[in-house]
């Protein structure tokens, strides 16, 4: 067994190619740096002012007093902007060789390669590759880098940008608003249904690299889109910070599904604000998997603003040695007959810590609303820890709210049974864990489901004995 553990690679995707940057802002944060970023990007004055205003908010706001330990982040040691290549590549061939190699090494799944024309790839701070599928463009769908959208669709961006998550929301939203770079802009016209998932592939490279992407999705009435975001990052000795902001508007009768599999290397602080405003009879679904990073604090939110709006959050967290996954969900019921379902599954082992933190709020007047929260935690050894911190604020009697949570370990009987059928102890644990997270796996796109199953098997090697 010892041999098996020692053979495990520390981090499968832990490699990196030499940095090739055209521009690298100085370390640390100041209004000069922020102005410089805006100037290089050739942004309109309103965006520059927005950034500067956000910077002042960031400086005033304190770190959250709750949640994971963030005291070791040194904001002065971070590069707030890097621009990898001069302009956005038009086709895959034009993407620099070294960057393409990185993708090969991650093993971008075959299914994804097939659709590469629709893939947005983020290498460091900016989207460097992006080519829109022609039929999507014909139907009026916009899918491009945020910087590009600011140039090509300034009115749309200005109308919605920062309206769902204003810089005042929290310290990291303010930071992102000041120094954001890259991310995706998605616009789905009324009645258009995009069958193929839109995918973005994010990566961090370069030491002390801050990644501050900004994503905005607008789904007009009766439209549908599934947006998929996957992350892997190479391993580095110094701490890295990832503070993204994702804003989504789901208009009447529309449906948006947003899938994330986060697998940052074990030194990244992953502090992300994600929120969706959901209109009448509209549906928002967050599927959020957190496997990597040193510390994650992420609570995808649904604000149910229209009558009959629905929200669903599926959250998966895995914490190994040195990791703290502080994840969860928020649902705010602000209109009658709204419903929300939150399902959280977490696994901790090797001294890792998982935390479910959630908010459920029923506003006065949200009659006939229903909310259901279910949290299950699996602890694989006595060194690990699991917490559940839900908050429920019920301000309307004509509503029904239920919350349930359980904490368990892998059953001896289950293990014994599986081993009696010829499985090794490791295989048996892997199988039980995969069964435990099944509700999340089954809603993932196939290639992600396969990847995740494989990852769990890999992680479970050497977990018993």
């Amino acid at each position, binding site marked *: 067994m010892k041999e098996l553990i020692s053979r495990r690679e520390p981090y499968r995707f832990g490699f990196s190619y030499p940095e090739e940057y055209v521009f690298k802002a100085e370390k640390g944060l100041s209004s000069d740096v922020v102005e410089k970023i805006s100037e290089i990007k050739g942004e309109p004055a309103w965006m520059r002012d927005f950034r500067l205003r956000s910077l002042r908010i960031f400086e005033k706001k304190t770190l959250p007093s709750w949640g994971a330990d963030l005291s070791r982040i040194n904001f002065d040691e971070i590069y707030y902007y890097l621009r990898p290549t001069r302009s956005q590549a038009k086709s895959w061939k034009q993407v620099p060789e070294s960057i393409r190699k990185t993708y090969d090494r991650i093993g971008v799944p075959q299914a994804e390669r097939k659709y590469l024309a629709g893939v947005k790839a983020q290498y460091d701070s900016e989207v460097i590759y992006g080519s829109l599928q022609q039929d999507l463009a014909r139907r009026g769908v916009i899918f491009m880098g945020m910087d590009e959208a600011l140039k090509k669709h300034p009115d749309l961006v200005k109308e919605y940008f920062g309206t769902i998550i204003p810089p005042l929301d929290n310290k990291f939203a303010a930071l992102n608003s000041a120094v954001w770079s890259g991310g995706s802009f998605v616009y789905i016209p009324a009645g258009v249904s995009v069958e193929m998932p839109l995918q973005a592939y994010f990566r961090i490279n370069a030491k002390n690299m801050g990644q501050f992407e900004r994503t905005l999705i607008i789904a007009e009435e009766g439209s549908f889109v599934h947006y998929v975001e996957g992350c892997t990052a190479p391993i580095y000795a110094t701490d890295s910070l990832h503070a993204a902001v994702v804003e989504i508007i789901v208009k009447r009768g529309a449906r948006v599904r947003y899938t994330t599999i986060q697998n940052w290397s074990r030194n990244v602080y992953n502090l992300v604000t994600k929120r969706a405003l959901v209109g009448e009879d509209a549906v928002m679904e967050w599927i959020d998997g957190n496997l990597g990073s040193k510390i994650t604090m992420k609570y995808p939110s649904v604000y149910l603003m229209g009558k009959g709006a629905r929200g669903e959050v599926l959250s998966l967290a895995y914490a190994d040695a040195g990791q703290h996954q502080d994840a969860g969900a928020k649902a705010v019921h602000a209109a009658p007959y709204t419903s929300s379902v939150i399902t959280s599954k977490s696994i901790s082992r090797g001294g890792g810590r998982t935390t479910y933190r959630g908010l459920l709020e029923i506003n006065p007047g949200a009659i006939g609303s229903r909310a259901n929260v279910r949290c299950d935690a699996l602890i694989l*050894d*006595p060194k690990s820890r699991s*917490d559940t911190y*839900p908050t*429920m604020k019920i301000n309307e009697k004509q509503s029904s709210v239920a*919350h349930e949570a*359980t904490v*368990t*370990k892998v059953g001896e009987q289950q293990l014994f049974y599986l081993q009696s059928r010829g499985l090794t102890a490791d295989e048996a644990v892997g199988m039980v864990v995969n069964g435990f997270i099944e509700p999340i796996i089954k809603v993932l796109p196939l290639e992600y489901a396969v990847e995740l199953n494989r990852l769990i098997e890999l992680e479970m090697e050497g977990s018993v004995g």
Partner: protein
Amino acid sequence: MIFVPVMGSKNKKVEVSLDRVGKEEQLVVVFAGKDNDRIDLDLSMIHLKPRTKGRITVKGILRDRATARIRGLVKIEKGAQGADDFLEERTLLLGQEARVESFPYLEIEADDVRASHAATSSPVDEGQLFYLRSRGLSQSEAERLLVAGFLRPAVAEVGDKRLGSKLEKIINYALD
């Protein structure tokens, strides 16, 4: 068993330490609020030793503009293997402006445990109410019956007569 009846505005803090191997304890809190009552409950069960068993059951009703804040914590310390606990918080909302905030927390630092919690809030079941009214009961009689049916199981299994009368008092407080 520790039984804590709460009528009207009150702050109650109860912490139970299970500090002996195999120790068992049950904490039952029944509360009722009406008018502008503000109830604040802070309840915890700390498992310090192996094979300890705890239960926290909180049941309450809120009328008018009454509000309740319920903090519940089950903490299982490192090494308290074989610990077993269930934290339950159930609130019946009778008032249009009644509010409840619920914080059922679990902190688990051992792996061989059974720990779970459940929290619910709901109005009186319209179907049940309709049935009782159709049998000739008045609105308030029907509500009283449903409230009693909701609260009674919290103390029923103890089989202590004195608790029954305490429970009556709570129901009377809320519904008169």
